[in-house]
């Protein structure tokens, strides 16, 4: 029996170490690809001719579609910021997803909303009917749609259906965009209007940054350790991960907080999947599948420069719910589209990106927890040398910290958004702290989300409280956006 356990423990060692080496090699490849793209884009920043694009009659008009639920403290400022974006022609279609606070009242006061009759094209189906539609009497291109509460994805479908322009930009209601973010993201569509179907930008945590009139005037690193570590995560995920995947033409996800799409293609694929918890990920996977099934040439782009700022959770409870939801959404999407896996007809998506997401995103928390368990068992049976185990732990941490610092260096060399030396030091410290419990606990939460899906449990988004973007002062510590709760097919539960 002891021999069997010993063999299993040793075999597991090779499995874990091998997995670790392969995973981090993939990260290094992505980083190398991103390392070529980000500085090149930065050098060419002043050559992109955004001023011409901002005034050109040929720049395609955009409908910014956003769904709001209980966003009373920040909604007016967010809408004003969206209206103030530098772009020749754009409109805002805001869907009030059955808010129970003063979200709509604030909008009505601020923009002089009046009800109008509106005929829906019905090109994209939605679960809940539209209750009423309002337009602004202040000569701003704002349409507000009120529906019964049905969740973010369904609300976005209503907004896409009512959008007037050929490009649709989906933005979270609690997000803040850089002034030129929309212009920068529209560039691929100007360059190749027939083939580019979707483009994504970077998301960064806005916690404790200085916000003035809906614009982030001074990005700062959050004071709390939880959001600070998320800055590191987001840097790796966006600057390294998505830039690298886009270079390989294998981008499988565009963040729901900021993505630009061709409306006609969204209509073709039926819009967002209202039953999915990872609706942004599921949409892009479905786009790939739809277009490759029809053998149509297309491109999905990622631009590392245009930034969307969003609040990230700074309490463990909210973060846990988010990570459970994300992992559950990841699993359900990968399961739904599993026929793409290792199928040559899906090109890089099916042969490289999809297997990566299965092996190194979906299974990663399982391997991490499994590794910890077998180390504990090995210790208990005296089969693992403490010295080797410690060495491996240090190597794993060291490698992970190195990747984070490289992503930070990429940001500094290419984009340098964080000006203060103290902020860089804080991010570097967070890159170390991430490995001292944060990764381990988030692995557990992700597994819980996966387990909940396997048990077919009820998905719960959870609710965060929001205090608003205040003048020139940093955001209040501990404030968050309100996120809609949803239970599949049922009424919403009470606030948590």
């Amino acid at each position, binding site marked *: 029996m002891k021999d069997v356990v010993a063999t299993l423990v040793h075999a597991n060692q090779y499995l874990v*170490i091998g997995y670790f080496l392969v995973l981090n090699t993939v990260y290094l490849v992505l980083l190398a690809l991103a390392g070529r793209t980000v500085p090149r884009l930065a050098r060419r920043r002043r050559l992109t001719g955004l001023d011409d694009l901002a005034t*050109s009659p040929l720049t395609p008009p955009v409908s910014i579609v956003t769904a709001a639920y209980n966003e009373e403290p920040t909604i007016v400022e967010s809408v004003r910021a969206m209206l103030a974006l530098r772009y020749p022609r754009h409109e805002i279609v805001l869907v009030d997803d059955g808010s129970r606070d003063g979200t709509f009242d604030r909008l009505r006061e601020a923009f002089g909303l009046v009800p109008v*009759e509106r005929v829906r094209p019905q090109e994209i189906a939605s679960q809940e009917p539209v209750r009423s539609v309002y337009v602004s009497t202040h000569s701003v291109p704002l349409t507000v749609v009120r529906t019964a509460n049905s969740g973010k994805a369904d609300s976005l479908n209503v907004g896409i259906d009512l959008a007037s322009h050929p490009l649709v930009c989906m933005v979270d209601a609690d997000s803040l965009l850089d002034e030129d973010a929309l212009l920068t993201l529209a560039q691929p569509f100007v*360059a190749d*209007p027939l083939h580019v179907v979707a483009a994504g930008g970077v998301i960064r945590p806005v916690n404790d940054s200085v916000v003035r009139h809906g614009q982030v005037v001074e990005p700062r690193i959050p004071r709390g350790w939880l959001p600070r570590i998320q800055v590191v995560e987001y840097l790796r995920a966006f600057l390294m991960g998505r830039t690298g995947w886009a270079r390989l033409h294998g981008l499988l996800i565009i963040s729901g907080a900021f993505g630009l799409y061709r409306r006609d293609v969204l209509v073709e694929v039926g819009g967002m999947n209202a039953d999915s918890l990872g609706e942004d990920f599921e949409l892009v996977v479905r786009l790939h599948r739809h277009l490759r099934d029809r053998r149509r040439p297309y491109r999905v782009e990622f631009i590392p420069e245009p930034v969307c700022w969003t609040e990230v959770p700074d309490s463990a409870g909210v973060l846990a719910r988010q990570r459970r939801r994300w992992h559950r959404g990841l699993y359900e999407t990968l399961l739904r589209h599993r026929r793409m896996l290792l199928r040559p007809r899906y090109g890089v998506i099916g042969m490289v990106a999809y297997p990566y997401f299965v092996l190194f995103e979906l299974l990663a928390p399982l391997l991490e927890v499994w590794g910890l368990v077998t180390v504990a068992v090995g210790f208990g049976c005296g089969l693992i040398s403490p010295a*080797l185990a410690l060495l491996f732990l240090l*190597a794993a941490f060291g490698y992970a910290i190195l990747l984070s610092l490289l992503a930070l260096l990429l940001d*500094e060399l290419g984009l340098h958004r964080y000006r203060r030396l103290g902020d860089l030091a804080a991010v570097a410290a967070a890159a170390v702290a991430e490995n001292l419990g944060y990764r381990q606990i988030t692995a557990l939460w992700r597994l819980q989300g996966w387990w909940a899906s396997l048990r077919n449990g009820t998905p719960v988004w959870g609710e965060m409280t929001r205090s608003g973007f205040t003048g020139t002062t940093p955001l209040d510590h501990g404030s968050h956006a309100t996120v809609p709760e949803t239970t599949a097919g049922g009424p919403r539960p009470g606030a948590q």
Partner: protein
Amino acid sequence: MRDRGRGRTAVRTVVQLVLLVSVAEAVLCLLVLCVTRVVRNRRERVLRRTAATTRPLVVEATGGESPSARAALAALDRRSWKAAEPTVTRLLSRVKGGSHHTLTDLLVRRGAVDAALADATRRRSLRRARAATVLALTGPSLRADPVRGPAARHALHALLGHRSATVRETAVRALGRLGDPVSAGLLLTALDPPRRVAPGLVGDALVRLGPAAVDALTGAAADGGDEQHRALAVELLGLIKDRRALPALSAALDDPAPMVRAAAAAALGRVGEPAAVAALTGTVRTDPSDRVVVAAAEALGLIGDENAVPVLERTVRRGPYRPAHTAARALLRLGPAGRAALGGIARGPDPAGAHARETLSLALGDRGGPDR
């Protein structure tokens, strides 16, 4: 046993190597980060301080009434000019007329334009692209320069065929701003593979050339290769709004490609020519493509001729969503006859009635009332 021992040694070696390399590179990374940030912060502080003193000079010089400010800027030392230059280039892209001439003249006196002309033939793509950007910014004023104008045009023409997409794009933008009619034909060739430039950029440059581009565009509209090129040519003719293009636009209404017919209809609407109403009415009535019908209906609304009321009314009553929706909006622009038609439709059954009521409520600015 021996195998297991060897295996363990190999694992230990690999792990030690990874740890060593990771730590060393992490330390290096931190060093580079700190040094880069410190140097950058210092440079930005110096630039900000210097720019604070030079910015008022730039603003004063741009006003055009202060020769002393212009002279002071021309005589600035290298460091001060480096701080002032971003303000100058930012203003160059936003001002016109006398202010633009003043700033261009300043760049000429500082040697920036001659340096750009020289850099346009350098090896490095980035230098060529930057050179083209300077020529783009100064183009509207440079065109009048008897020496530098033609030199800039010649240099930019050569860059249109460069292997770097960025260089080609900046060259296209610069030619548009230079505004030399001779460039129209060459700009159209920038749409062709293998070294094509984004249609939107080429189109914008051609629109800037204005009437000087009409001949080249009417040729492209008639036999400009693929349908995307023909559609772009037609669209640009509509944006330039030169009546010489009307025959070409009317002919394009019969193009086999719906994309081109739609662009032609939209262009006729922009030009606003009443003589096109008959052709557009026929298009609304008979074209099989909804996209073309929508464009033609919208164009009829822009032209505003009441003779279009019957066909638009029919489209609202019988058309699918998009044509009906657009036709209703177009009727609103056709004066009392159009509104009367909408009123009649609004009293009738949905969906036509709903389209009409929606359009009328937008026009009247419907106020109050409970939520539905």
